[in-house]
C-alpha cells in the first residue's frame, strides 16, 4: 500500500490527514521553499507543535517540519506493544557515562506530535520555588521566568488540553479547577492512596491529558491502558490531536518525514533557513526565523551539526553550553504483589500521585524533590523489567509472570541536578541521513543517589503499609530528558533568554524541553507547552515593536491570518 506513513509523506498536496475521521483529510496551506516563511520550526512535539499553533494563530507564516510520520491514531495504532515501538525515536545513538541512559522507548518520540503521541499524559505544574531554585532552595540554577506568569500559561494549556484532574489540588498555590473531572481510580491507584493515608501524607488523582468526557469528535478514555503505546481513541490530548489541527486551521504547514540536517547561517550571522531530507532528497526551506524544538538530544545535535567556520563549535554556543547540563529524571520503582487482583493494565498507567516530597523540605538529605505515582506496565515491558532489573529467566521468569495481575508498583519522577559533564556530543559514526549521531553521556551525582535512596526507602514503606509481599526495588531507570540549551538571564551562562531566543543569533530560537535550567520532580510536558505559549506571546510583542525578523511584524493588525485562510 502506498499509504505507509513511515515511507510516504501524508501532509502534502495541500492537505493533511484528519486525525478525527478515518480516511479523512483537512486542507492545509503550503509554502514555497524559495520564499522565506516567518518561522521554520524543527519538531512538532510539546514545544514545537504548541508554538506552531500559537504563531500561526497570531498571523505568522509557519512551516513545521518533523522527522517522523503523520499518524492517524484511529487507524494506525494497534493495541500492541511491539507494533507500536514505531512511535519511538530509535535511530542509532551511543550512550555512555557511569549511568548510561536507556533511550528508545524510554525517552523520545519520532512523529508529528513528538513524544506526546506516546507519553503517559501526566500533566503537572512545577512548584513555584523551582523557578528560583538557586536563590530560594540553594541548588541548581534560577530560571529567568516568574512563577506567577507561568501560572497563567499553565491555565491556558490546561484549558487547551482539557486536563482532567481533582477539584482541589493539595499542593502549592491555588489554581483554577481542572476543566474536566478526574478519572476513576484503578486498583493500582487505590493502593497508592491507601499507602499515603497509612503514612500520613496527601495524595490526589493524577491530572491527566486524557478526556474524562467527550470533546468534539474525540470520545472519553476507555481505560484500555495502551497509552504509552499510542492512544487509538483520541482520548489522549497529544499535540497531534490538539495543537496541530489548530495550527493547520490557522494556516501553518506541517511537513512530515522531513528530517532537518542543518540550520543555515548567512554571512550576516543570521540564520536563513533549514536543510531537510524529504522524499529521498535534500531540500532547503528559507525562513526569517528558525526554531529548533527537537527534544533534549536532537536539539543540541542539530545545533552542533550546523557548525560553520564562523560558529565552529555549533550554533548558539558562545557560552559553550550547548549539549551540556543534560538532565534526566529519575524513574526508580518499588514493586511488590498483593493477594488481591490489581490488574494495573487497565486505565492510564498513573491515576494517582503524591507530590508530598516535592513540597516538603524537612526530612531530606538531598536537594530537589520527587513525586511518585502508581504504575501499570504492559506485559512486554513488565517481563523485560523482571528479566533485566531482577535478573529472572527460565522457569522463575515464567512463574513470576503469572503473578502479573497481582503486581503493584510505585515509581518516582525525581529531580536530577544539572551537571555540565552530563551531555550530548557528536560521535564519529553517521546515521541513515549521513548525519553524525549523538553520544549521550550520563552519570548520577551523589545528590541524585541520595534522592533515589530516600524515595526507594519511602515507597517501600508505602507498599508495606498495603500488605504487599515480595517487595523489591528497580534502581536503574530514568525518564524525561531536559536541559542541553538552558535559558537564563546571562549570555555567558545560558544558551537562550527567557523568550527562548538564542543569545548569539537573534533569529534562532529554541523551544522545547532543552531550555530547562533545572527539571524539578514533576513531569515536564505541561511546562514545555506553557513556555511555548509564553514564547509565542513574546514573539508577537517583539514583532509589534519591530524587534523581529518577520513579514508579519511589519504589518498590522497581527492576528488575522487564521481560520479564513483555507477552507476549501
Amino acid at each position, binding site marked *: 500500500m502506498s499509504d505507509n506513513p513511515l515511507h510516504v509523506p501524508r501532509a502534502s498536496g495541500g492537505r493533511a490527514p484528519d486525525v478525527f475521521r478515518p480516511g479523512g483529510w483537512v486542507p492545509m496551506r503550503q509554502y514555497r521553499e524559495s520564499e522565506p516563511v516567518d518561522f521554520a520550526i524543527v519538531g512538532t512535539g510539546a514545544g514545537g507543535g504548541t508554538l506552531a499553533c500559537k504563531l500561526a494563530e497570531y498571523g505568522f507564516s509557519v512551516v513545521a517540519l518533523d522527522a517522523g510520520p503523520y499518524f492517524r491514531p484511529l*487507524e494506525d495504532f*494497534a*493495541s*500492541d*506493544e*511491539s507494533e507500536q*515501538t514505531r512511535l*519511538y525515536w*530509535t*535511530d*542509532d*545513538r*551511543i*550512550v*555512555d557515562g557511569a549511568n*548510561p541512559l*536507556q*533511550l528508545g522507548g524510554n525517552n523520545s518520540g519520532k512523529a508529528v506530535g513528538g513524544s506526546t503521541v506516546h507519553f503517559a499524559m501526566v500533566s503537572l505544574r512545577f512548584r513555584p520555588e523551582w523557578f528560583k531554585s538557586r536563590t530560594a532552595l540553594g541548588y541548581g540554577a534560577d530560571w529567568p521566568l516568574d512563577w506567577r506568569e507561568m501560572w497563567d500559561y499553565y491555565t491556558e494549556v490546561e484549558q487547551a488540553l482539557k486536563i482532567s484532574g481533582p477539584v482541589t489540588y493539595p499542593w502549592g498555590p491555588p489554581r483554577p479547577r481542572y476543566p474536566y473531572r478526574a478519572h*476513576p*481510580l*484503578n*486498583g493500582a491507584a*487505590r*493502593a497508592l492512596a491507601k499507602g499515603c493515608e497509612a503514612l500520613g501524607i496527601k495524595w490526589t488523582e493524577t491530572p491527566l491529558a486524557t478526556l474524562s468526557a467527550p470533546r468534539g469528535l474525540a470520545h472519553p*478514555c*476507555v*481505560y*484500555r*491502558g*495502551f497509552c504509552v503505546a499510542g492512544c*487509538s*481513541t483520541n482520548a489522549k490530548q497529544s499535540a497531534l490531536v490538539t495543537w496541530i489541527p489548530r495550527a493547520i486551521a490557522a494556516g501553518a504547514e506541517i511537513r512530515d518525514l522531513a528530517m532537518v540536517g542543518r540550520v543555515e547561517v548567512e554571512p550576516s550571522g543570521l540564520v536563513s533557513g533549514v536543510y531537510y531530507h524529504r522524499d529521498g532528497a535534500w531540500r532547503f526551506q528559507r525562513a526569517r526565523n528558525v526554531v529548533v524544538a527537537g527534544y533534549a538530544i536532537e536539539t543540541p545535535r542539530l545545533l552542533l551539526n550546523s557548525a560553520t567556520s564562523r560558529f565552529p563549535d555549533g550554533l548558539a554556543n558562545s557560552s559553550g553550553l550547548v549539549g551540556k547540563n543534560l538532565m534526566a529524571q529519575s524513574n526508580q520503582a518499588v514493586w511488590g504483589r*498483593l493477594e*488481591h*487482583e*490489581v*490488574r494495573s*493494565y*487497565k*486505565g492510564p498507567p498513573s491515576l494517582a500521585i503524591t507530590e508530598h516530597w516535592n513540597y516538603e523540605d524537612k526530612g531530606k538529605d538531598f536537594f530537589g524533590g520527587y513525586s511518585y505515582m502508581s504504575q501499570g506496565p*504492559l*506485559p*512486554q515491558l*513488565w*517481563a*523485560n523489567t523482571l*528479566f*533485566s532489573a531482577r*535478573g529472572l*529467566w*527460565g*522457569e522463575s*521468569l*515464567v512463574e513470576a*509472570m*503469572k503473578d*502479573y*495481575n497481582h503486581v503493584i508498583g510505585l515509581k518516582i519522577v525525581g529531580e536530577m541536578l544539572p551537571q555540565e559533564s552530563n551531555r550530548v556530543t557528536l560521535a564519529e559514526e553517521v546515521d541513515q541521513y549521513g548525519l553524525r549521531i549523538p*553520544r*549521550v553521556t550520563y552519570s548520577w551525582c551523589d545528590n541524585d543517589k541520595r534522592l533515589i535512596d530516600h524515595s526507594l526507602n519511602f515507597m517501600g514503606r508505602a507498599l508495606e503499609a498495603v500488605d504487599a509481599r515480595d517487595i523489591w526495588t528497580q534502581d536503574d531507570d530514568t525518564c524525561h530528558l531536559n536541559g542541553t540549551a538552558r535559558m537564563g538571564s546571562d549570555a555567558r551562562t545560558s544558551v537562550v533568554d527567557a523568550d527562548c531566543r538564542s543569545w548569539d543569533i537573534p533569529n534562532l530560537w529554541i523551544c522545547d524541553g532543552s531550555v530547562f535550567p533545572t527539571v524539578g520532580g514533576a513531569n515536564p510536558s505541561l511546562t514545555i507547552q506553557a513556555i511555548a505559549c509564553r514564547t509565542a506571546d513574546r514573539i508577537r510583542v517583539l514583532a509589534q515593536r519591530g524587534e523581529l525578523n518577520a513579514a508579519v511584524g511589519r504589518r498590522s493588525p497581527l492576528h488575522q491570518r487564521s481560520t479564513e485562510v483555507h477552507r476549501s
Partner: protein
Amino acid sequence: MHERRDRYPEYDVLAKWSGPSWNDKTREVIARRLSIAPEPRFFTRDEYDTVVAIAHRIVPQPAGRPPVPIAALVDRKLHDRIMDGFRGPGVPRDADAWRQGLKALNAEASAAYGQRFAALPDGLQDKLLRAAQCGELKSAEWGGLHSDAFFKHRMGRDIVLAYYAHPTAWSEIGWGGPASPRGYVRLDIDERDPWEAAEAKDGSDAAARRSNRRVR
C-alpha cells in the same frame, strides 16, 4: 519437572478476536505475528538453531501446546531492522551484536565442552548462560562486546520481548490483551470485566474454567 498448573484455565485471549476488544488494525498486526513461519530469514541455519536452544532456556515452554516461535520472532525483528536505537560504546548495532554474540557463545561451548551450544544438555546450557549473565565469558570471540551486556541488553531482552508479544503468553498470564475500542469498565481492586480472564483460586478452578470459556 516443573508443575505447570494453569492459573487461568481455558482462558484464550484469541477468543476475543471478533469481539469489540479487537479492531481491524490490531487483527492485522496479530494475524501477521501468528502466521510467522519457524524459518530464518536473517539468521543462518546454524545461528537459528542456537537461538532456538537459547530461547528454550530463557523462556521454557510446556509440551502440551504449540510453542511460541520465539526464534522466528527475533529473526523477523532483525530482518525488518527494528532496533532499540541505543547502544554502549564499542557495542555493535543490534543485528551485528547478535551475530557476534552467537559466534562467541558457540565458541565458548566448544572450548568448554567440545560441542556447539545447541547440542549441550540443558544443565550445561544454563551454566553457560549464567556465566554470560555474570560477565564471566571472556574469550577472544566476544571482541568489544561484554557477555553480560549481550545477555541483558540484546539476547535475553529480544527473546523475552518476543515471547510476551505472543497471544499464547498473554493467555498464560491472564492479561486482557488488545482492548480497543471496548476497553474496560471495572477498574478497582478485585474487580473484573466479563471479558477478562478469571483466576483459578486455591484448589478449585471449575468456576474460573466456566467463566473463561465465556470470554468474548
